[in-house]
C-alpha cells in the first residue's frame, strides 16, 4: 500500500525526520507512538503535503506512485487522508458545500460518477448521525465553533465520506473523553477493510484499547527506534519512552 523509505524532513531549517522507514500493507493498522517532539505530527503533515515541511531525502510510494511529487490535493485524490490534530475553523464555508466539493474532486479523479445533491445529502445525513453529531452541523461553517471532540468527529465524518485508502489519524484521541473516544474508535473500526490501511499516531496507549493495531512503532528523534505487536504499547505505557531514547533498546 505505502512504502516510506529513508524519509528526512526539515521544518524551518530544523531537521525533524531523520531517516524514517515504514512499510504498510493493505488492511493493516499501524500505531505510531513516541514522546513529544519525536516528529509524530511532522510525519502526518509531510505525508499530506503541507507547505513549510521540506523533504530533504527519501521517498513515499503509495500504490506505485511517488507521493512527494504530488500537490496536497492530488495526494488526497489518490486516497490519502489526514485527520488533523487541530482541524482549522473556516467560518462562512458551509460544511456541506465543503464536503460536496471534496467528494466531487476525489470521485472525479478516481473515475467514479458524481453524486447528485439529493443522494449526497442523504449519505451525509447518515454519516453525520453515525458520528453522533447533530444534523445542523452540516449547515454550519466548517468546524466553526465546534468543541474539540466535535472537530475530531467531523474529521471522522469526512473520512467516511471520502473512503480513503490510507487514513492517517494524527492524535485524534488527544483531549477526547472516553465516550467521544469510543465514537471515533467505532467509526474507524467500521471502516477497517482488507483494502484500507491506517496510521494511528498517538501519545497515549488508551486509544489502542479501542483501535487494536497490527503493529506498534516507536518514533524517537525522527526515526523508528522499535517496532512490535500490540503488546509493545502496553510495555510503553508501563515503562515510558526513556529506555528507548537512551539507546538501550
Amino acid at each position: 500500500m505505502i512504502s516510506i523509505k529513508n524519509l528526512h524532513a526539515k521544518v524551518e531549517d530544523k531537521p525533524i525526520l531523520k531517516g524514517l522507514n515504514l512499510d504498510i500493507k493493505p488492511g493493516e493498522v499501524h500505531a505510531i507512538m513516541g514522546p513529544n517532539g519525536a516528529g509524530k505530527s511532522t510525519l502526518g503533515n509531510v505525508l499530506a503535503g503541507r507547505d513549510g515541511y521540506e523533504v530533504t531525502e527519501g521517498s513515499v510510494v503509495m500504490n506505485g506512485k511517488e507521493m512527494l511529487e504530488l500537490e496536497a490535493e492530488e495526494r488526497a485524490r489518490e486516497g490519502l487522508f489526514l485527520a488533523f490534530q487541530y482541524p482549522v475553523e473556516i467560518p462562512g464555508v458551509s460544511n456541506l458545500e465543503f464536503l460536496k466539493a471534496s467528494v466531487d474532486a476525489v470521485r472525479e479523479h478516481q473515475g467514479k460518477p458524481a453524486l447528485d445533491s439529493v443522494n449526497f445529502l442523504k449519505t451525509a445525513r447518515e454519516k453525520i448521525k453515525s458520528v453522533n453529531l447533530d444534523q445542523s452541523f452540516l449547515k454550519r461553517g466548517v468546524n466553526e465553533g465546534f468543541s474539540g471532540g466535535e472537530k475530531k468527529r467531523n474529521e471522522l465524518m469526512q473520512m467516511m465520506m471520502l473512503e480513503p485508502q490510507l487514513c492517517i489519524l494524527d492524535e485524534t484521541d488527544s483531549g477526547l473523553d472516553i465516550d467521544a473516544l469510543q465514537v471515533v474508535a467505532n467509526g474507524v473500526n467500521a471502516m477497517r477493510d482488507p483494502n484500507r490501511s491506517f496510521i494511528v499516531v498517538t501519545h497515549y496507549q488508551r486509544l489502542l484499547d479501542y483501535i487494536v493495531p497490527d503493529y506498534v512503532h516507536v518514533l524517537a528523534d525522527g526515526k523508528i527506534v522499535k517496532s512490535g505487536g500490540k503488546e509493545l504499547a502496553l510495555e510503553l505505557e508501563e515503562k515510558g519512552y526513556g529506555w528507548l531514547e537512551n539507546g538501550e533498546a
Partner: protein
Amino acid sequence: MSTVFQTQQLAALNASNGWLTAINEAGKAAFAEAQWPSRKTEAWKYCSLKALADHAFDAAATASTTAEQLAEITQIAGLDAYQLVLVNGQLQAELSSAMALSQVSLFSGADAEQQTLIADRLQQARLQPGHHLFNDLNDAALADGVLVQIGKNSRLDKPLQLVSISTGDNHVVNSRVIVVLETGAELTLIEQFASLANDSSFTNNQTEVLVGDNARFNHYRLNLMESDARFIGTTLVDLQRDANYDSFHLGLGSVLTRNDLIVNHNVGGSHAEIAGVYVPKDSQLVDFHTDIEHRVAHCTSNEVFRGIINDQAKAVFNGRIHIHKDAQKTLAELSNKNLLLTNKAEINTKPELEIYADDVKCAHGATVAQLDNKARFYLQSRGIGEQEAQVMLSFGFINELLDGLKVEAIGDWLRPVLAHRFGRDQVFSAEQTGDL
C-alpha cells in the same frame, strides 16, 4: 468652474413645490455655490465622480416596463414582506401591496402634522456632519418622498420592502425616504436599489431615520444596480434613548456607488450594529463612508465591513468614530477587512477615530488580507484544488456576514448571487437544507 452635471441639474430644477419651497431654495442656493469635489476634497479623495461630471443626463425617463421584468429583478425568494415599488422615483401603487401602501404616506399627501414632522427632519438633515452637494441637490429637487411612521409600541408584522428601480437610460432620480419610529416601535425595512440592464441613470437617494426611545430598527440597504448605474446615497440615523439600530449594507458594485452612513447616538443606552459587504469587479467603484457620532454617555456601536475587490475595481472604506467630550462609557468597535483578488484591484481603507472622552473602550482595525493558508491547506488536503479552495474561501469571507443576518431569507437569497459572482455556484439550495 461648474461641471456639465451641475449646470444641467440647476437648469432642470422646478421653481416651487408648495410647502417644500423653503427647503428647495436652501438646497438650490447651496448646490449652485458648491465646489465640485476633486482629489483635494478629503471626503471624495478616492471617489472619482468622472461618471457624473461631464455626463449629460436626460430628464426623468418614462420607459415602460412589464410587471414580469420588475418581478424578476426585485423578488427576494422566500421573503415574506410588504412590498412598495418605486419606478424612476414614482410610486407604483399597482405593483405595491395594499398593506405597504397603508403604512406609508407621500410627502405630497402629507397632512399638516406630517408636514411639520417632515420639515423638521429635512432641516435636521441639513445640519448633519458630512453634508455634501448631492444632499443639497436632493433638497433642491425635492418634490415628493416616502414617509414611514410606526406608532408608539407598535410594529409591522412583516418587513417593509422598499424597491427603487430605474428603468430608462440616462436620467436622474432624486429620492427621499423618512422613517420615524415612535417610542417602543419596531420595523424591519429593506431598501433595495435595482436597475434594468444598460441603464446609465443616476440615483441620488437620501434616507433619514429617527429611532425613538426603546424602539428597534432593522435596516437592510442593498445596492443591486447594474454595472452602468450611478448611485449616491446618504443614510442618516438618529438614535434616541435605548434605541437599537441593526443594519446590513451591500454594495454589489457599479461604475459609481457611493454610500454615506451617519449614525447619531443622541441619548444614552442606544446601540448600533452595522455590517456591510462590497464586492466590486471590472472597473467598478464602491465607496462606503460611515460616521458614528457618540454624542452622549453609555452608548455602544459595533461595525464590521468586508470587501472583496476583483479585476481593476476600486473600493473605498472610510469609517469614522467620533466620541464627544461627554460620551463616557462608550463602547465602540470597528473592523474592516479586505481581500484583493488581483494586482490591479485597489482598496483605500481608513479607520478614523476622534476621541474626546477619557473613559471609553474603542477598538478599530483595518486589514488588507491574504487568504488564510491553514484554511487553504485544509481544503486542499481534502482533494479540493488550489484555485477552487481560493474561491471557496473568498466567498466564505463574505458569507460569514450573510450567516449573521436576522432576516434569513435575505441571506439565503444573496448567497447564490454572491457565490455565482465568485465563480462557484452553490450546490445546495435553501429548500434542501431548510430543515438542518
